[in-house]
């Protein structure tokens, strides 16, 4: 069947199961938008800045567990996507970004709105393509989706010259994508699984350290089964939150720079560290030679480049986390050496030691009668949503308080720009999440600085009746940077004061949304209740204690046991 390139794109999107595209038009993609208008199967969400389209697609992907899609024009439309793409790359989120390009005959001529976006995004995409031959269009799109969603997921970009979209192409029925050079390893090596299990059975002080790979591979059930079966305490990275129930007695919460005292102590004292889908990021390890110094390390990851990258690993297992942990569970079930009750008794002294650490320095903060504490706001959000909301965050202190105090019990409910740390991620992500799960409560836990980086998306939220809630923890500061200046730069607050700020209540109202403000602790609960009861987009402006810090804190480059505490 002969169709135009733009029509072929529509057919490919349908065949890939894409219902929602986040985008913004321009000259180079008018042909595509012309088809979008006719396409009743597809919802196009018109964002107000292309960066937001990519963050929204990223969040959409995280919530549904499949590929998110963004579509933008050439030149500035394309360059505006770079931050979103880089964020998805570092967080291993499957998205496909379509960028318009000038007609093939003009490429390389510095044509109007021409930019080499394939060159620009080469180091921050899993793969990218410039389609110059219309006959390769369909195969390229199918390959792109395949690459984005398999193996270690990631962003893929396809650059589409205008003439390729107008050209006639032969639409062929899909067949399974077969690639000569790309075959990720899903199944673990049985010998390695056995070796790992035997070695875990010998350990006295094991810790399970899980990351975003557990979420990406939907391994949370297998991980939970394993931890409970083996009575192993669990700690999560920022990206791994929700991979194991945060309220489970075995949960130690997050580890690393702003991790809990007991998680960091446990990791530095353990004799066996089982890393699952985590990558030993510097924010997790602190000073490398002091990280888990007594531990034998098992590392399960689908990406061989993550293994032994920062820290030498004793038992590497290259596999999909879900498959590997399932294999460990079934190995344990089959072996006579394993007895659930005996293991529980054996690990009791270790779990007890962790309980002692926890009692000594629980996660906490100093309460005050007249000033709203940000941690209190997050606790109230947890309480009033029953812990069941999808939480997105901006970046900074707000992000860390959200991670510490909203105890995530389910995967795909905590969406944050973990690797790149993009201020401005949270709000467009909330819109993407709400488009993916309209029945869920979606809250962006925001900072007063970050929210201004994509505030224009209020128009998008209003246009698509996306009643997301924004909770600004308003300290009138670029708080996280201020905290570093306080601690390590003798309180020289260079350019971190944000006294000049909009009235967020009026700002919400200007867009037709609802604005609410709380300045006293007693107002927090009523404001949240009203926001949750409102069927509209709401900004909650919580005026919080200005110089509140995030604790515990491991100063950059220090050992994770050298924590500054509340």
């Amino acid at each position, binding site marked *: 069947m002969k169709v135009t390139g733009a029509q072929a794109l529509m057919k490919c999107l349908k065949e890939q199961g894409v219902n929602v595209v986040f985008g913004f038009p321009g000259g180079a993609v008018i042909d595509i938008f012309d088809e979008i208008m006719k396409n009743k199967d597809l919802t196009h969400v018109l964002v107000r800045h292309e960066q937001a389209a990519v963050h929204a697609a990223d969040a959409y992907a995280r919530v549904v567990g499949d590929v998110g899609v963004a579509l933008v024009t050439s030149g500035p439309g394309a360059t505006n996507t770079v931050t979103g793409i880089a964020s998805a790359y570092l967080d291993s989120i499957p998205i496909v970004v379509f960028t318009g390009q000038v007609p093939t005959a003009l490429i390389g001529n510095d044509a109007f709105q021409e930019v080499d976006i*394939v*060159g620009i995004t*080469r*180091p921050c995409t*899993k*793969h990218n393509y*410039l389609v110059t031959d219309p006959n390769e269009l369909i195969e390229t799109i199918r390959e792109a989706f395949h*690459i984005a969603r398999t193996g270690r997921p990631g962003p893929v970009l396809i650059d589409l010259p205008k003439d390729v979209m107008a050209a006639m192409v032969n639409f062929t029925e899909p067949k399974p994508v077969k*690639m*000569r*050079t*790309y075959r990720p390893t899903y199944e673990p090596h049985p010998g390695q699984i056995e070796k790992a299990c035997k070695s875990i059975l010998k350990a006295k002080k094991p810790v399970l350290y899980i990351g975003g790979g557990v979420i990406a591979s939907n391994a949370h059930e297998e991980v939970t089964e394993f931890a409970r079966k083996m009575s192993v305490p669990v700690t999560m990275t920022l990206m791994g939150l929700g991979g194991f129930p945060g309220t489970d007695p075995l949960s130690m919460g997050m580890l690393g720079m702003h991790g809990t005292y007991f998680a960091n102590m446990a990791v530095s004292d353990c004799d066996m560290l089982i890393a699952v889908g985590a990558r030993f990021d510097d924010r997790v390890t602190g000073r490398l030679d002091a990280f888990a110094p007594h531990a034998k390390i098992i590392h399960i990851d689908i*990406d*061989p*480049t993550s293994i032994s*990258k920062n820290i030498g690993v004793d038992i590497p297992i290259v596999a999909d986390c879900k498959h590997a942990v399932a294999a460990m569970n079934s190995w344990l079930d089959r072996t006579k050496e394993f007895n659930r009750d005996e293991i529980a008794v054996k690990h009791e002294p270790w779990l007890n030691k962790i309980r002692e650490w926890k009692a000594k320095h629980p996660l906490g903060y100093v309460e005050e009668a007249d000033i709203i504490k940000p941690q209190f706001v997050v606790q109230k959000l947890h309480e009033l949503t029953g812990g069941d909301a999808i939480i997105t965050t901006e970046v900074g202190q707000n992000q860390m308080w959200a991670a510490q105090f909203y105890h995530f019990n389910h995967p795909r409910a905590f969406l944050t720009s973990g690797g790149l740390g993009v201020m401005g991620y949270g709000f467009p992500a909330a819109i993407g999440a709400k488009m993916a799960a309209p029945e869920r409560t979606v809250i962006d836990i925001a900072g007063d600085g970050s929210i201004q980086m994509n505030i224009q998306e209020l128009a998008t939220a209003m246009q698509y009746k996306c009643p997301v809630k924004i909770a600004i923890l308003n300290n009138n500061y670029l708080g996280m940077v201020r905290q570093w200046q306080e601690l390590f730069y003798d309180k020289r607050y260079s350019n971190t004061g944000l006294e000049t700020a909009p009235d967020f209540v009026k700002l919400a109202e200007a867009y037709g949304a609802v604005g609410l403000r709380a300045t006293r602790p007693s107002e927090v609960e009523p404001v949240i209740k009203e926001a949750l009861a409102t069927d509209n987009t709401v900004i909650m402006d919580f005026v919080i204690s200005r110089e509140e810090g995030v604790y515990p804190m491991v100063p950059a480059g220090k050992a994770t046991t050298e924590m500054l505490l509340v």
Partner: protein
Amino acid sequence: MKHTISVLLQNKPGVLSRVTGLFSGRGYNIESLCVNKTLDPNVSCLTLVSYGADQIIEQITKQLHKLIDVIKVTDMAETEYVEREMVLIRIKAEAGTRAEVLRIIDIFRGKVVDVSSKSYAVEITGDEEKIQAVIDILKPIGIQEIVKTGTIAMARARKTL
């Protein structure tokens, strides 16, 4: 430490810059680079030489492997291999030195590929050390121009008794 890395990759636009980007992105220099088609015109073989910490080079090798267009990566340090470079040298060759130049070239099994009344252009192949030795010997006579290829390398066939 010196690493000679051999990469089989799809012969497509942009692939080379994906490979070199992994080095430049880490501030690593590529000392030499050689690429050409294999028997299969869709597949190229690339040989590159880089100096760096073993652990970082190992990380780069793994990253190379992860590139979608890369078929196979071999760090030659892990095998026995032969390597060759080729050099073209234009050397001053006037009445007094013409015979000596020819003698030296002959010792190194080089070939004269261009002749003028004042110079010879010669071609020599060998490993890095041999090429350096020729250059060192010819230098006092007067090298006018020099062009070197990158290293190409091939693993030795496994010898079984």
